[in-house]
C-alpha cells in the first residue's frame, strides 16, 4: 500500500519550468553525444564556504537529474574520471588535494568550481590559503560564480569533456 502510494507521488511530480528544462536536456544530450558513456565525478571541497556544494548537490535534484543521464558522483578518486574542486585550496587541505589528484586514474579531468576555485576569490593567497586550485594541481576548466548556478556547472562539465575529446 505504502509503495503504491509512494510510486504514484513520484510520477505525479511536476515538471520544472519550461526554459531551463529544455536547456538542461540539450546539455544532457551534448554530454552523452560527446562522451558516449557514463562520467564519474569525485567532488573535492578544498576549502569552500559550502555554497558551491549546495549547487553541486542541486545537480542531483530532479530538475537537473544528472545521475539519470549517466553522470555519477563517486566516493573515491580512484573511481573518478573527473575531479570537481571547490574553494581556495587551504594550506591544511593542500596535501589531501595532491593525494586525491595522484589517486585519480589517467586520463583525468580537473574542473575548478566557483570564484574561489578559479582565482582564489575573496580569500586569495595567505598564510592559510594556497589560492586558486591551479596553484596546487593542473586544472582543465574553470567555472566562475559565487556560487555558480547548476546550469553553469553543467556547461562547465560539458566544456571539460569537449576539451578531452
Amino acid at each position, binding site marked *: 500500500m505504502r509503495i503504491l502510494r509512494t510510486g504514484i*507521488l513520484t510520477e505525479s511530480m511536476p515538471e520544472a519550468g519550461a526554459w531551463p528544462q529544455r536547456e538542461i536536456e540539450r546539455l544532457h544530450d551534448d554530454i552523452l553525444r560527446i562522451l558516449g558513456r557514463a562520467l564519474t565525478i569525485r567532488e573535492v571541497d578544498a576549502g569552500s564556504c*559550502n555554497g558551491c556544494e549546495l549547487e553541486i548537490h*542541486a545537480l542531483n535534484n530532479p*530538475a537537473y537529474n544528472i545521475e539519470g543521464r549517466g553522470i555519477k*558522483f563517486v566516493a*573515491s578518486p580512484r573511481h573518478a574520471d573527473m575531479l570537481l574542486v571547490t574553494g581556495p585550496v587551504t594550506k591544511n587541505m*593542500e596535501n589531501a588535494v595532491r593525494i586525491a589528484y595522484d589517486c585519480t586514474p589517467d586520463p583525468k579531468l580537473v574542473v575548478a568550481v566557483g570564484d574561489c576555485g578559479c582565482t582564489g576569490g*575573496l580569500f586569495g593567497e595567505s598564510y592559510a590559503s594556497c589560492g586558486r586550485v591551479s596553484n596546487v594541481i593542473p586544472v582543465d576548466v574553470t567555472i566562475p560564480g559565487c556560487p555558480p548556478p547548476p546550469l553553469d556547472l553543467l556547461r562547465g562539465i560539458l566544456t571539460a569533456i569537449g576539451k578531452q575529446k
Partner: protein
Amino acid sequence: MQLLDETIAFTLQSGVGAPVWFGRAADGEELRRFAAAARRFDGRMAAIWGSDERQRDGGFRLHCVFGLNQGHAWVSLDLPVDAPAYPDLADIFPAANRMQRATRDMVGIATTGGDQRPWLRHGAWPADWYPLRHDAAQLASERGDFPNAPSDYDFVRVGGEGAHEIPVGPIHAGIIEPGHFRFSVIGEKVLRLEQRLGYQHKGVEKLFIGMDLAAGARLVGRISGDSTCAYAWAYASAVEAACGVAPSLRALMLRALMLERERVANHLGDLGALGNDAALAFGFTQFMHLKELWLRLNARLFGHRFMMDRIVPGGVALDLEAPALAAIIEQCDYIGREVATLRTIYDEHAGLQDRFLTTGAIDADLARELSLTGMGARATGIIFDGRAYRQGFTPPPPYRMLGVRPATDDRGDVAARVAVRFNEIFESLRLQREIVVSLPDDELRADLAPVAGGAGLGVIEGWRGEVLVGVALDAAGKLARVHPHDPSWQAWPALEHAVMQDIVPDFPLINKSFNLSYSGVDL
C-alpha cells in the same frame, strides 16, 4: 548593573539587536566565578576569541560571550603582553575547549592548564607565530616562507581486546566539506568518535583586519554559505550597534524574510538527504525538487539563489514590490501543502522510522552541558529560540511583533531532529506570510558612518542555531577585529556523544541529522 549576582559591572549595548551586556573581568578568577555562575543558571558558553590590543592600549584581550536567559553577556579580560594567559574554563563549560585552543593558535593567548593540543594549526605555520597579531606579517617576512608540514594529532586512544580505529577524512565520501573523524569501534559498535577539524581554515579572521565595513559584509556572507543571511544579519547588527544606527522596521522585516527563506531552504534539503541516508530515495527526490523551486524564486525575487550580499550594514540592498510579495505567499501555500503530504509519508514509513527512532540520541542535560543551541538543542526538549519570547526575554524586532512559536521535541534522536525540522518549516512559512502582509513602508537602508573605536556584538537565530558576530572598529573606522561564531562549535562535540553506542553505518544519518558547518568553525 550586575548579572547573576556576580561582581562584574555590565552596560547594555545600544541598538535594536538582541540584548547584549558588556563587562570587564578584573582578573581570571573573576571570569571563572562568572562562568561558574552562568553554568549554575543553565547559561551557555556562546563564544570565545582573542584580540591583540597592543597598538591601542597595550595588551592582549580575551573575549568570552555567555548565553544567559535574559540575553548575552560579553565579558572581556585584559591580559599582559609578557604573559597572556588565563584560567581554563573547559571544566565549567566543555564547549570552551576547542574555542580556547583556536584562540591560542590564532592570537597566542593560552589557558594555564587544560588541553594544549593545537586546533586550527595543522603545521602550515610555526607554533610560535600567531596570525592575528598585528606584527604577524612583519615577523613572517623576516622568517621567510613557512614550510607546510602537516602534523600528527594526538587522538585519545581506546584500548582493549577487539577495539580498533577507523580513520575517515579529511576528504569524505560525498559532496561535503572536509574534516577528519577518528572512530574507535568494537565490531560495528562505535565506542568513541573524535573529530579533528581545521581543514577549511582559510584565514578569514585575518582578512577582516583593516577591511572597510562594506568589504567585511561581503566576506562575512561567505563564512558558511548555507547560513549567509544569518551571518550577514549578525554582522550588520554588530556594526549597527558599534555605530549607533538603527535600521528601519521595513529593512528588519525583509531581513527576517530572507533568514526564514534560508531556514526553509536548508530544512528542505536536509529532510531530503535524511530520507536518502535511510535508503528512501523518493524523499530525496521530492524534497530536492521543492528546494529547487524555492531557490528559483529566490533567484527571481532576490537576484541570488542563496540571497548573498542582500543584507548590508544599515539595512538591506533590495526591495520587494507587490507582485513579488504575492509570489511568496503563493509559494508558501504550495510548499506547506507539499511538505504536509511528505510528512505523512515520512511518519508512516516503517523502514524510515526504524532508522530514525532512538538513533543518535542525546538528552537535554547533555545539551545544556555542551552549551548546545538551535535545532539540535530544541530536539532534546529545550525550549530555547532567540526569535521567541521566554520568561525574562523579549526577542528583538521584527520577531518581537511576529510571535514565534519554537518547535521542540524531547526525544533527542534523529527522529526528533527530523520532527523539529518539519515543524520549523511550517512555522517559518507562517512567519513569511505574516511578514509579507504586514510589511511597512520605510527606508531600506539607513546612512551609516563608521564610529572610530566602536564595538558591537550581533546575535541571530540561524537555521542551525545561534550565529554570533563580534566587531571592533579601529581609530580610522576600519575593522580592527571581527570574530564570527558558528553554532557548530558547540554542536560538533554533541555529535561525538550522539554516535556513541550506535553502529558505524548509522553515522552518516546521525551526522546529517545535525548537518554541521565545517567552514563556519574552521574560518
